[in-house]
């Protein structure tokens, strides 16, 4: 129960395909340094399928408390049924305007770095945490990249290519200042509920 607020960077690569190049990039000394420079305290990495050996190798390069970690507290795991718990740890807590609310651990607004999977992007957007979307270049399906570009265009987050994640983190503060609105705006016209009821065709 430290009183120092935590500032978390959460990285997720999803469950269906491995994404070793992103994992390699965020478990590197240069990335730890970037996080430390930007006042981050924690890093959690969900590394997915068939990547455990690589992760252990990378962790051995910069073990706990070594200078290579730059003081970042690191946690890794392969899968979890519910990622929103971790994403929630990157939210500001207590929320703005509710500073009197008692909380166990104070949290500063953090960062989510995600592969371009629909589920992960949606979950990140729902948390309202700044998001960097990194499409997996090894996947043939290009609609993920289209989605990532659209996210950037609508200013819900930014897209970064593999290898360019560090500059994206460096630029994040500038982007937030430029009103990078990762909070979900209401783009909806609430058509699903009426459409469902329409198919049932009630008397009235």
């Amino acid at each position, binding site marked *: 129960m430290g009183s120092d607020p935590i500032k978390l960077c959460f990285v997720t690569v999803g469950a269906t395909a491995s994404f070793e190049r992103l994992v390699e990039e965020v478990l590197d000394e240069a990335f730890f340094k970037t996080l430390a420079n930007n006042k981050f305290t924690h890093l959690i990495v969900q590394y997915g399928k068939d990547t455990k050996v690589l992760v252990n190798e990378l962790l051995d390069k910069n073990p706990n408390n070594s200078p290579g970690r730059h003081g970042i507290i690191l946690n890794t795991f392969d899968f979890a049924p519910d990622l929103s718990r971790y994403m929630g740890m990157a939210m500001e807590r207590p929320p703005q305007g509710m500073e009197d609310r008692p909380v166990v651990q104070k949290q500063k607004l953090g960062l989510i770095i995600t592969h371009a999977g629909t*589920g992960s992007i949606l979950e990140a957007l729902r948390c309202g945490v700044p998001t960097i979307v990194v499409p997996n270049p090894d996947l043939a399906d290009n609609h993920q990249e*289209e989605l990532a570009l659209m996210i950037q265009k609508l200013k819900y987050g930014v897209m970064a290519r593999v290898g360019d994640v560090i500059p994206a983190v460096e630029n994040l503060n500038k982007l937030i200042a430029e009103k990078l609105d990762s909070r979900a705006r209401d*783009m*909806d*016209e609430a058509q699903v509920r009426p459409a469902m009821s329409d198919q049932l065709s009630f*008397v009235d």
Partner: protein
Amino acid sequence: MASLIISLCVLFYKLLIPAATTAILAVLILLAVLTYSQNAQIPRVRRRGTPVHILIVLGSGGHTTEMFYLLEKHESLDPSIYTYRTYVVTSGDQFSARKAEHFERQLADKQRKKAKGNTDTGSFDIVTIPRARRVHQSYWTTPFTTLQSIWACLLVLGGRYPNQKKLPWKYPSVYPDLIMTNGPAVSVCMVLAAKLLRSFIFMSRSVSVQARGQPEVSRLRTIFVESWARISRLSMSGTILLPLADQFLVQWPDLAGRRAWWGMKKTVYAGWAVL
């Protein structure tokens, strides 16, 4: 030699031309039936407050996440309207089954908090059926597993799949009233199965003397919601289901107004259903 050619020509006229004509006719009839079916008006005879059975098709990770987000938004899945919910998951997909249980717990919690006398959320069932196509499965065997999957869907729709719960007595029909689907392959099988069942019901009603002309409560109606990830191109499942689903919702304006062919129903922009 000449006689061989002549006999081949005769064979051609006798067999191939009628066969080709029949095939073309069959396709035209199928297209006409699909067009008629998608445009048919549903009689407004369902009374409010009567129990409604909804069937929800869940697929792999992203699809399941999207499905629950859209059901949750604006309380689209209102347990006071949709009193019985059947979730269909494919074998080996523990994630979707767990999500469904979690979602049901949330529904119950919300209902308890409202607590306006009625805390009943109805009941639900989770049915597991085989996958339509496993990753890396050979394309040669895909048609067979697809048929197997359609058969499983037919059984589920009829409430006869092994281990499926028995529907409470207050439901007048074994068939679900509404079927909600989004992207996964199994949803194609489910909509096909619903369409097949409906055509059987339609035909049996049109030969029955008592039933003819009587308006009937609509059942086995299908809604397909295209994935939020699809911005400018429909998915494979979406393309197949375009002429089959009763209502086709999309989440990006570019995809609105699409239809399978002339005279068919157009896709409808529904805003961001999942956020």
